[in-house]
């Protein structure tokens, strides 16, 4: 909708009789090129984002009367809704556990699957596999594995651990969600890091070796700085997606036991599509967006300190 007005403005602004200048003609072509994706972008991406924030200021049931309530939805979730803070805490706990472990696993395996490994393409593909198989199917298999008489319980009993039931305890359920998410998600970062590692020129390592740098020092002073753009990209993307965690707890634990693994997105889903209260659900979404935007902004501001672009 808005894009059509900008496109219209460019044609009406060429009012003078003279033939439009080259610059203006180029701009007009550019707007025409942008229009197909631009219209869709405004209607289906930017529009809903703005709408989400607007809805947060309304009492908006799925069926029935909508009324403007100002900040009431935010006041409700911040003050009189213990579940909201619980889910914020759960989400933060998940992010704090998931992101560092994901990085360690992804970088570790990216380094391990070095050029010395035969068939490294196949290894990469197979470690990446869970990232492209449907997350719901993955979570269902994991539920089968971690149930009280499942494979993990069987393995635990070999080591004398009886009554192995991680989903029955709060800490265990969160651990199960984190482990399943790691299994599902680290392959993606591993590919990112692998591509980054492969593009580091050999002569840097040769030079460092000739200067007598040991393997750990080469890793610290060559690999990490050269990999920093990949690390930055992965950090931004992983943080964004881990704050949005939904399917894993939804399928694996149902948010339980109690509310131990109910995440912010699960909570906004419950409020919106089970309690049919779109207003407070959008308020939760807006808060989540604010958190993610803030963290991403901090990362972008901080990148000057540690990210090296050639």
């Amino acid at each position, binding site marked *: 909708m808005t894009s059509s007005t900008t496109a219209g403005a460019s044609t009406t602004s060429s009012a003078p009789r003279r033939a439009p200048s080259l610059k203006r003609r*180029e*701009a007009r072509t*550019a*707007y025409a*090129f942008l229009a*197909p*994706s*631009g219209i*869709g*972008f405004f209607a*289906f*991406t*930017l*529009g*809903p*984002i703005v709408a989400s924030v607007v809805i947060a200021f309304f009492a908006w049931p799925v069926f029935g009367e909508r009324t403007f309530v100002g900040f009431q939805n935010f006041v409700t979730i911040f003050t009189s809704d213990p579940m909201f803070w619980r889910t914020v805490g759960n989400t933060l706990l998940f992010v704090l556990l998931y992101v560092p472990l994901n990085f360690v696993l992804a970088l570790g395996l990216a380094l*391990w*699957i*070095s*050029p*010395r490994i*035969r*068939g*490294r*393409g*196949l*290894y*990469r593909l*197979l470690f990446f*596999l869970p*990232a*492209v*198989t*449907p997350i*719901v*199917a993955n979570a269902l298999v994991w539920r*089968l594995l971690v149930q009280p*008489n499942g*494979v993990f319980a*069987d393995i635990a009993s070999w080591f004398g651990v009886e009554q192995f039931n991680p989903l029955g305890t709060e800490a265990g359920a969160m651990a199960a969600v984190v482990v399943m998410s790691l299994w599902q998600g680290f392959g993606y970062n591993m590919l*990112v890091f692998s591509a980054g590692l*492969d*593009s580091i020129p050999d002569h840097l*390592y*040769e030079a460092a*070796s000739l200067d007598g740098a040991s*393997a750990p020092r080469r890793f610290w002073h060559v690999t990490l700085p050269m990999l920093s753009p*990949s690390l930055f990209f992965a950090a931004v993307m992983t943080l*964004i997606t881990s704050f*949005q965690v939904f399917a894993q707890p939804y399928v694996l634990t149902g948010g339980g036991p109690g509310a131990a693994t109910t995440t912010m997105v699960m909570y*906004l*889903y419950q409020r*919106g*599509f089970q309690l049919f209260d*779109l207003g407070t659900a959008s308020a939760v*979404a807006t808060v*989540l*967006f604010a958190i*993610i935007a803030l963290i*991403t902004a901090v990362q972008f501001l901080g990148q000057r300190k540690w990210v090296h672009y050639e």
Partner: protein
Amino acid sequence: MSSATAQRPDTTRAIVQPRDLHDEYVPRPASARRRARLAREITSQVLLTLVLLLFLMPFIWMLATALKPGNEVFASPPSLFGSEIRWSNFVEAWTFVPFGRFMWNGLVVSVLGTLLVCITSVFAAYAFARMRFRGRSGLFALYLVTLLVPQEVVVIPMFIFMQELGWQNSYQALILPWAFTAFGRLVSIVADRGNTAFNWISIAIEALLAAAPLAYALGWVA
């Protein structure tokens, strides 16, 4: 495909050269050094394969479960193989739900979505990368910022929007919104500038394009 990638170790072998150079300074017979390195490489390969098998266990279990008789899925103690290998499970699943229809839905959504995003992205990317116009950098920044917005934020207004359009349970509701996310454009822009360091982003697109419609086709989001 895997055989082609398997060739790569020899061409990129130079990456491991530095360590060899470093080892040069250690006074040891060359043959012993080579043997020690070979042993290290074999150990590494075997260990990695073990880790991989462990990692793939959920998939192996998924396949094994698919071939068990239904009443043995929750058997205790669990075993990889049931009393029989039941291939008929697949036939039953196929006929129990309209699976062919599900796959067709997934195919329509992903193919049309991909075509749409490719076509519109090529034009937009060319405009951003090669042309000068007012609001170029501002518009580009706007595109990028939307990448940071979680999809769940968009789901509720999108639901209302689709309700208003009367598009519930339609292909266009699954295709159109996701075909216009900024991702495709970002990639083609980057590719147009020939920045190969960003090649890995294309992996993200493929994964997203493959996974998102599937998630919807499988009913992840109501």
